[in-house]
């Protein structure tokens, strides 16, 4: 199968590693080869966490700059920071809910305007889907479900070619049973938001 390269960027604690695991499981269910690599050295200390997921026949498990087919950003400034991983054909999906880096609080940087972030992402890539995943996660009953909302948006775009059923099955297998209902709700809300976006 054709290779699809997905990069997920997030802030430590946002649950992107779980999102990657769900996608890995969905790939297994769908019979698609997959390899992933993650950088999570100081994740719990609030740093940036990145996972690279390669679907299809390529052998490498990392993704070079400019070679992501999809960029999924859990935080708008982090999505923009990862723009060098994209090219003109990259599809970008981003959460618009911000998490201020501490450097902003102590006056060592200015957080970019989110509308401007969206404009830049749109202008430089093939397309942008943006949604307030935090708001939707809360609506689904748990702010912890931001990752699943964003998965919903990703699946809605259809770029990965995974069926909704397979991803739901993967969520079932990989997330805690106590959160399943909220997660499934979050997934639906994410899909719907991407459809409207």
């Amino acid at each position, binding site marked *: 199968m054709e290779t699809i390269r997905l990069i997920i960027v997030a802030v430590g604690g946002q649950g992107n590693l779980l999102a990657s695991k769900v996608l*890995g499981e969905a790939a297994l269910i769908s019979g698609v080869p997959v390899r992933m*690599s993650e950088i999570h050295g*100081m994740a*719990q*200390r609030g*740093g940036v966490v990145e996972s690279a997921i390669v679907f299809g026949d390529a052998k490498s498990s990392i993704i070079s700059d400019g070679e992501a087919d999809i960029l999924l950003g859990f935080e708008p400034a982090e999505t923009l920071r990862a723009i060098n991983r994209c090219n003109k054909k990259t599809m970008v999906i981003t959460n618009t809910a911000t998490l201020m880096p501490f450097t902003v609080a102590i006056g060592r940087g200015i957080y970019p305007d989110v509308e401007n972030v969206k404009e830049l992402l749109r202008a430089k890539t093939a397309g942008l889907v943006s949604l307030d995943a935090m708001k939707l996660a809360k609506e689904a009953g748990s702010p912890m479900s931001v990752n699943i909302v964003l998965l919903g948006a990703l699946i809605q775009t259809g770029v990965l070619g995974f069926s909704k059923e397979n991803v739901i099955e993967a969520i079932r297998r990989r997330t805690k049973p106590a959160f399943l209902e909220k997660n499934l709700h979050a997934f639906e809300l994410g899909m719907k938001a991407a459809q409207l976006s």
Partner: protein
Amino acid sequence: MHKLLNDSPGDKIMLLGNEAIARGAVEAGVAFATTYPGTPSSEISLNLFQMSQESDLYFEYSTNEKVALEVAAAAANSGLRTFCMMKHVGLNVAADPLMTLAYVGVTAGMVILTADDPAMFSSQNEQDNRYYAKFGGFPMLEPSSVAEVKEMMKDAFELSESLGQPVLLRTTTRINHSNAFVTFGDIKKPDIQGRFIRDPHRCVTVPTVSRGLHVKLLEKLEKAGQLAESSGFNFVQGSGKFGIITNGVSFHYVEDGIKDLGIEDKTSVLRMGFSNPLPGKMIKAFLKGCDKVLVIEEGEPFMEEAVKAFAQEEGIVIPINGKSKELFSRLFEYDPAMVREKIANYFDIEYTPAPKMDITDIPEIPIRPPNLCSGCSHRATFYEVKKAAKEMDMDIICPTDIGCYTLGFLPPLSMGDFVICMGSSVSSSCGFSKATDQKVVSFIGDSTFFHSGITGLVNAVFNNHNFTLVILENDITAMTGHQPHPGVDMMRHGFDTHGRINIEKIVRALGVEHVSVVKPFKVKKSIDIIKQALEFKGVSVVISQEPCALYAKGLKLLKPKAFMVSDQCTDHKDCINTIACPSFYVEDGRVNIDADTCVGCAVCAQICPENAIRPLKK
């Protein structure tokens, strides 16, 4: 049941590289495992630790890597399959036993895993540990993928047993921290009852014995070299006059690159997986079939230099290249696009790299460095030492050490001036205090103190140095993911099988004359006590005791009680500017505390000159 103890061969599950390694050890029938944790190797030991609680496996977190290797060496000389794992710089600590264990060898399979970290995602250097295999005289295996490393573990034990020699298995971060599907194989039931058979002419390395052992070592290496010639881990893929010799993760970048460039029918790739001793015959035969050869290996030119030497022996005069200004670097890690481009350049293949994304109009995005957690006791201790020194008008140098607290060097705390390796805070303080007339205050964590801080402190007392050592006792090895250490109360984790060592008693027993204990969340009191320690001429030790907040939260020992900023705040932002707790944020110019992340350590409340920070009433 632990997922890696699953006894249904054929099951396919997604595993992290480190989980695949642990599973490989189990499938190989490992009986005995030791480690000192270190990223990127830590999840291997974490899984073995968990599995040891449900199986016959003996596992221990040893005091440091040297101890871990010595403990393991005894087990492997008592007939038990033994696994000892560590990060690359850990092998430096273990280098002393390593070099002579090479002479002594083992009576059962022993695998020593070194997790190298090209690009230094979480390390102080990016040394290439393949040289240890050559330096000491060990057969070495290097996997290219997560699935391969599980299989390689089993072969490594077999190989070690057949030679009576420990095998070095070398991974890099991109193996340890990648995920892929792995198929479970059979689990071999371990032999767990060892027996040591006395053999002083092999095991007691006095000079006369060692002279004989060195001869034997060279014989073993010769045999290993023959095995490398026929090992399934060394293979040629494809055919053609363009030759590429590669190892590790680079192999897959090469495979992808050749395919993308459409030169599959012109290129032969020699993948080295059994890479010490290198199979000379195989390499020479490969070179003879090529017009031009490119060696692609991250790190040092380990293979390249050997390949050039083999070519010289054989009188082969084709171009052989690898590391050069135009080609590959000795720095950092490689990636698929870089490898593709260099291959194209070297073999003159037409190739236009995709244009780079223009990012000149992207605004500067504020950096997001990792930060000590909300409620981390280190933040309080750093603040207190800084404040005490300032009030005493002291210009201090702060050697620090390796752990979460290394992050204290970042502003605004800016506490940390020198760090080279585990334990160096204490010994370098000895040097700074003699070489300068500046006051020296150094920091070391509890786990690091046990690892290699104690010897430095012995030195300080004996040689009568003059500095203050602050021991940050937070009851866990926090940075690598919360592993126990000798000062931890193992009863808290449900083990009644461990001893516990009291840091204060050790420090006093070493003869340190000025020893004090502070509770860092009592700010004023701590500052007063620290001042007395700073005043003392000679070695003084301050032990700052407070459990790691992240860990305590996980164990439910800490029940967060959030604070808030009241109207009394007059906006001078002392709190933010001095301690930089990540729970602070500024909204419409006013300081706020995020109630979801604040754990209620109340340090900021004690610093605020307006007493504006108060417990949040629910």
